[in-house]
């Protein structure tokens, strides 16, 4: 649990400055996030099936956003533990797009390179690399690259599973590439330029 009496709070930063982080996250989130509407009721954390593994509950994280605690928020494992089950989203009385805010925070944390454990960001990046190479997901490539780097010790205990998946024809050895890969890459490259300028 981090120190909630943040330096900046004591330093008496202006309210406007604090809110700029909240606003930034809200603007970067798809759809209308309603993040500013959070009333700190805690329904989100109480509904979360994975809250026990989070550094901060979503409610606490949103309070930290409002307090302008950028570094602490982007270091939190909370967005990475979020399983996108949307339980909090349908229960939130203020209709905050909580799961989408978590996606935004992941992207911001990757750009700020503030995470302490790179397992989750690397998995996302590996997945993205596969999609940008083949246009489809390639599970065998994804799993082997990911496990060799992050869970080498888990490999022996996973062997029966991997073996079963391959022999039952559920994990193709070769990736499948879409026909118009160039078109997809043109779209994604343009989208990345737009992302930088927005």
């Amino acid at each position, binding site marked *: 649990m981090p120190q909630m009496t943040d330096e900046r709070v004591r330093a008496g930063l202006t309210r406007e400055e604090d809110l700029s982080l909240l606003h930034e996250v809200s603007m970067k989130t798809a759809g209308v996030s309603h993040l500013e509407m959070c009333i700190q009721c805690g329904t989100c954390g109480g509904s979360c099936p994975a809250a026990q593994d989070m550094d901060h509950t979503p409610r606490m994280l949103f309070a930290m956003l409002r307090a302008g605690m950028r570094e602490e928020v982007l270091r939190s494992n909370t967005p990475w533990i979020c399983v*996108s089950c949307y339980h909090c989203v349908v229960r939130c009385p203020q209709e905050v797009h909580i799961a989408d805010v978590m996606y935004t925070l992941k992207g911001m944390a990757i750009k700020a390179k503030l995470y302490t454990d790179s397992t989750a960001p690397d998995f996302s990046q590996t997945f*993205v690399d596969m999609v940008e190479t083949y246009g489809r*997901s390639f599970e065998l490539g994804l799993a082997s690259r990911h496990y060799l780097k992050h869970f080498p010790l888990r490999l022996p205990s996973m062997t029966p599973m991997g073996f079963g998946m391959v022999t*039952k024809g559920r994990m193709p050895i070769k990736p499948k590439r879409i026909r118009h890969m160039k078109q997809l890459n043109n779209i994604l490259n343009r989208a990345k330029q737009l992302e930088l300028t927005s």
Partner: protein
Amino acid sequence: MNKYLFYPGCSMESSAKAYMQSMNAILEPLDLQMEEIEDWNCCGATEYLGINLIPAYSLIARNLALATKQMNGTRTVTAPCSACYLNLAKADYYMQERPSLGAKVNEALAAGGLQYTPGTLEIRHLIDILVYDIGLETIRSKVSRPLTGLRVAPYMGCMLPRPDYKHRWSDHEHPTELDDLLRALGVEVIDYPLTTNCCGGHMTQIGPETAFELIRRLVADADERGAHLMATVCPMCQMNLDAYQGEMNHYFGTDYHMPILFFTQLMGLAFGREPGDLGIGAELVSSRNALANIGVEVPVTQEPAAPRKKDEGLPMPRRWTKHEGKEAVK
């Protein structure tokens, strides 16, 4: 003939081949036609959205744009995977809710000569089509082998009934669509309050301890309530509960053996098709004993690995053989 556009998603060609096979087996009796979107790409699952916003939505929207080119008598896109369904529905919804996002996504699509106007398509999940378009009456009329006596836990998963942008489901937390459909097949549906709890999603890959606990809750509850097996509507749920059940057992020192089948496999059985035509046997936690309860015999599709003869030699993990070993002897 009911025609729909079809977005299979990556899993249907790999880990969830059984879902594809069993879905194809029930299309004809139900007079359904699925036209695959040509050259579709991955929806990005839950990974792409966490890296970059506009590329993620452009990736999804390319599929929507391609689908509009095939709109010939239908504007409904069917996805059998809950994660694909949610991503497609989400892109369509947010491009409308946030016009600036829609404009940027269209600017990116233009680089590939494509365009998508949000709202053009209707995005629906396979079970939604079956329950609300085809109807339970029609489904019941096709049943030639009622699955009477089979106790099934109906597992809807999370991304299907939530967040439910277009209000398609009976409830966000306790929807009854899957229960009703299974009952129409003669199945004894058990009370399963965890029906929309999470299977762990991508946590099996990045935080296994978190995922194992979520898997344990679901499997343990189905087991305690006396289910013979669980029925799912999503490739990711099936993968997590089936393929990682062994590792979960190992982690907690438990010994659950809960087979996970796709609801379409049960439909196929009830329609009189044979297990081999429905991909039954591709699951890692065998459904053989569960289906023996209703007199369905599952053929051995794959020779199981030969049991280790002696206890000497390198200690190799043997978890799966605890249950499957007996079958291997037969």
